[in-house]
C-alpha cells in the first residue's frame, strides 16, 4: 500500500508550491499518472483525502490523467504504443527502447486562491 507514501508526496509538493505563491487554499490538483506505474487511483485519492485534513489542501479536487505507455526506439527513432509490455521496436526489431510516456507520477498543476 504505497499509495499513502505517494499521497504524502503529492501533498508535500502541493503545499510547498502553494506557499511559494502565498496561497491560502488549494482548490484543485491535477496529476499525471503513467500507465506503467503501480498506482490505484481510488486508493490514492482516499489516502490524499485523509492526509489533507486540516491543511489548505483539505477538500481539494484531485484529478488524475492517465498517460499511455509509449516507447521510442533508440535505433530507428520510431515512436510506438507499447502493448503487452513488449519493448521491441515494431519497425526494426531493436531491443533498445526508451519509455517516453507511461512512467509519470507528476503534479501537473494546481488551482489556488
Amino acid at each position: 500500500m504505497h499509495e499513502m507514501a505517494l499521497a504524502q508526496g503529492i501533498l508535500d509538493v502541493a503545499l510547498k508550491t502553494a506557499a511559494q505563491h502565498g496561497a491560502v487554499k488549494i482548490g484543485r490538483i491535477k496529476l499525471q499518472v503513467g500507465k506503467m506505474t503501480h498506482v490505484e487511483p481510488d486508493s490514492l485519492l482516499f489516502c490524499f483525502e485523509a492526509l489533507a485534513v486540516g491543511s489548505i489542501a483539505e477538500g481539494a479536487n484531485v484529478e488524475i490523467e492517465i498517460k499511455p505507455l509509449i516507447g521510442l526506439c533508440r535505433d530507428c527513432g520510431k515512436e510506438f504504443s507499447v502493448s503487452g509490455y513488449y519493448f521491441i521496436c515494431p519497425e526494426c526489431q531493436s531491443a533498445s527502447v526508451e519509455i517516453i510516456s507511461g512512467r509519470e507520477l507528476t503534479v501537473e498543476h494546481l488551482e489556488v486562491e
Partner: protein
Amino acid sequence: MEVKVMTDILDANDQLAHTVNQKLSSQGIFVLNLLGSPGCGKTTLLEKTIAALKADIRLAVIEGDLFTSKDAERIERQGVPVIQINTAGGCHLDAGMINSVISGLDLSSLDMIIIENVGNLVCPAEFEIGEDAKATVLSVTEGEDKPLKYPLVFRKSQAVLINKIDLLPYTDFDLDAAMHDIKGINPEATLVTASCRTGQGLDEWYHWLKTQVKKKQNRSSENGRCKQPKSTN
C-alpha cells in the same frame, strides 16, 4: 489562479536516493537493490552469494523486513556486517531509511552493499533507494505469469534470476514463456536461471555481480577516488 508545477511526486525520495548513491559512490561501493516476492529465495540467494564471494569482495547487507530480524540473523551467521531495517508494516524501503542507516557501516572497507528489499513485486519497484542496480528474483513456484502481471519491477531490473529451477519437474511453470516475457519487458537485462538449493546456475549470477563491482571500482578510480580493493583473483 492556476499554477503550473510539473514536479515528480517521488522527487523528494529520488533526490535523497541520489545523495545516498553519491555517498556510497565516493567510496567506490556497488549497491544492489535485491527484489522479489516473499519466499522467492532472496535471503537464501544472499547466503549463497556471501559464502561464494566474501573471500574476494568485501560486502555488507541491509535487510528490509516488516517486523522481524529473522533474515538479518541468517546473514549475520555468514560473517558479514548486516543492518536490519524494520518497516513496521511498510511495504517498501525508501531512500530516507537507507540514508539513516548507512552511517552504521564502515564504508571505507566495503566493495558492495546488497539491500534486500521487502518481499513485494509492486511497491519497491517505484522507490529508488540509492542503488546502482536492481536485481529481481522470481521463483518457479510463483508461476510464469508474474513478469506480465508485475512488469515494472522486471523492466527496472538490470538482472533477473529465475530461482528454484530444480523444482521445474514438479510444477507447471513454463520456463520458455517466462523467459520470453522477461526478455520482451526488458531485453537488456541479464537473465539467469538457477537453483539456490543445488547451486545450479549460480556461477553466472556471481559473475554478473563481480562484473558490476569491478565496473564501479573502475568508474570510481577514473573519478579520482581510488580505493584499494581487497585482493582479487
